[in-house]
């Protein structure tokens, strides 16, 4: 890979005395789906939040570069304006904000109806609805994914996009992620489900805040399924991870 879109080197993050990320190095190329696999609590979401610039996730060491520019000191919204966005594992609820308005944030020319169709939601049913607790978690995840499509970002951080999605709809999510890639968006695809990793161009597995293996998605997914972690066999925890 030449000139990666996202380049992470030696990233370390500690919070409340716990090391959440330990010497993470990772590169994601333009128009590439890079799957990040790993069990619950292994640091996948922390890494995504650190790249996005979320509050409390500024790295203690290392650097994050986007299109060659160092971004780890930029505030979140400025990273967004460079073309990075994120879909959260548990999407936020917004009382009084209709789906239509949410889908045009930062992108008023986007056609919200078309975006909804692409994630399998009927526009007539959802455009006027509020993005609050009247929508299920799965519905909000799809709306958030539709918002990512509307933004046409250069890099999308998708945190567990299939969580809360029924099995029948999983293929739609896979199709959307592939369409994002085909439209030129690089995707850092976070999942604890190895079948999501299979749609990636490359994959990495995390455990205990570290990337323990990277390579082809088939190789990483197989290893994840068979061994969970090549070093600890799933028993390594954050607290026991050596400094």
């Amino acid at each position, binding site marked *: 890979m030449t000139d990666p879109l996202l380049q992470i080197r030696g990233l370390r993050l500690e919070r409340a005395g716990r090391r959440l990320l330990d010497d993470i190095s990772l590169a994601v190329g333009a128009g590439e789906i890079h799957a990040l696999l790993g069990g619950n609590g292994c640091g996948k979401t922390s890494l995504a939040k650190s790249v996005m610039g979320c509050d409390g996730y500024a790295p203690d060491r290392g650097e994050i570069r986007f299109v060659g520019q160092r971004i780890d000191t930029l505030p979140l919204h400025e990273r967004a304006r460079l073309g990075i966005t994120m879909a959260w594992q548990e999407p936020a609820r917004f*009382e009084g904000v*209709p789906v239509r308005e949410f889908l045009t*944030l930062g992108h008023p020319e986007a056609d919200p109806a078309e975006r909804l169709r692409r994630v399998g939601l009927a526009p007539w049913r959802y455009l006027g609805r509020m993005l609050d607790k009247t929508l299920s978690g799965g519905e909000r995840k799809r709306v958030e994914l539709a918002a990512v499509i509307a933004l046409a970002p250069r890099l999308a951080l998708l945190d567990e996009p299939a969580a809360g999605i029924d099995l029948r709809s999983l293929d739609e999510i896979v199709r959307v992620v592939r369409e994002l890639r085909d439209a030129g968006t690089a995707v850092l695809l976070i999942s604890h489900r190895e079948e999501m990793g299979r749609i990636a161009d490359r994959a990495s597995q995390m455990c205990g805040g570290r990337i323990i293996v990277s390579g082809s998605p088939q190789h990483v997914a197989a290893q994840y399924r068979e061994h969970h972690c090549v070093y600890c066999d799933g028993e390594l925890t954050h607290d026991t991870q050596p400094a």
Partner: protein
Amino acid sequence: MTRSPPDGSALARLQSALDRVGVTDAALQDADTAHLLVDAHRALSVHDVPGVEVQVRRRLLGIAVDVRVQPGAQIANPVHLCFGLSNPFGAQRVRLDVDIGEGASVRFLAHCLFARTRHASHRMRARIQVRRDAQLSIEEGHVHGAAGGIVVTPRARISVGPGARLFSDFSLLQGRVGRLRSDYRVDVAEQGLAELAVRVRGRAEDRIELNDHIRLNGIGARGLVKTRVALTDRAQAVVRSTTEGNAADARGHMDCTEIVKDQAQGESVPVVRVGDPKAQVTHEAAIGTVDQTQLETLMAHGLTPDQAIELVISGMLRPAATEPA
């Protein structure tokens, strides 16, 4: 049907305030739409429709308004009740008596227009009766001036009859709230329903005191108190919500959210009283800053922190009636 001769100047000022909240002159000219337009203690325009009777009379200190909806009447168009002060200084005292007949259904749009006020007060004393199986929806929107020189003290005693439904939604649409002290008490009979919602933003030195009290007195009565307050600068708010479950299968819930910024102060005092072992009343309250995940989600769309906070607050305070379809 009666029409009072309009006072051009006052009428024009109040109409201008109505325009700002999307109520055009056509709504008040429509023969099929009942309305009342009051400036201080003077009725500028009154219009009835079949099934709705609006009567106004002067009192020694104030104005009294009676609204009667005939039993069984299904009123298609909302009834516009406009109370305003066209002058910057003054006081308005309103006694409102509402009687919704059995099985009737009606929607009131109450417009409280104080856009020009600099030092004024609006006092409302309401007695509302929603009789058996009737339905009343009240959407009360306030338009205040930028100076905050208004004291608003609405008090309502409401009776919701068996199987009847009451929906009340109070919103500050524009301007500074000034000083607001509301006091609503609702008694709900068997299988009746009462929902009270208040959405207010306080700025500068505004003071807000909300008192909502629902008594679920009948079997299967239901009640909801929903309060949304956003405070900035040095504004202060106290939200006191009480729900009593006094009968079997009564269900009540209170839901209070206050967003507080700068040196503002918010307080929530929920009171739950249950007098029947088969009744259930719950409450939730959240006071603090805007949720971080909400902000970060919006900023990931390129909004600045200030734009994100404004969107969260404006969404939270958006009146149900104005939510886009």
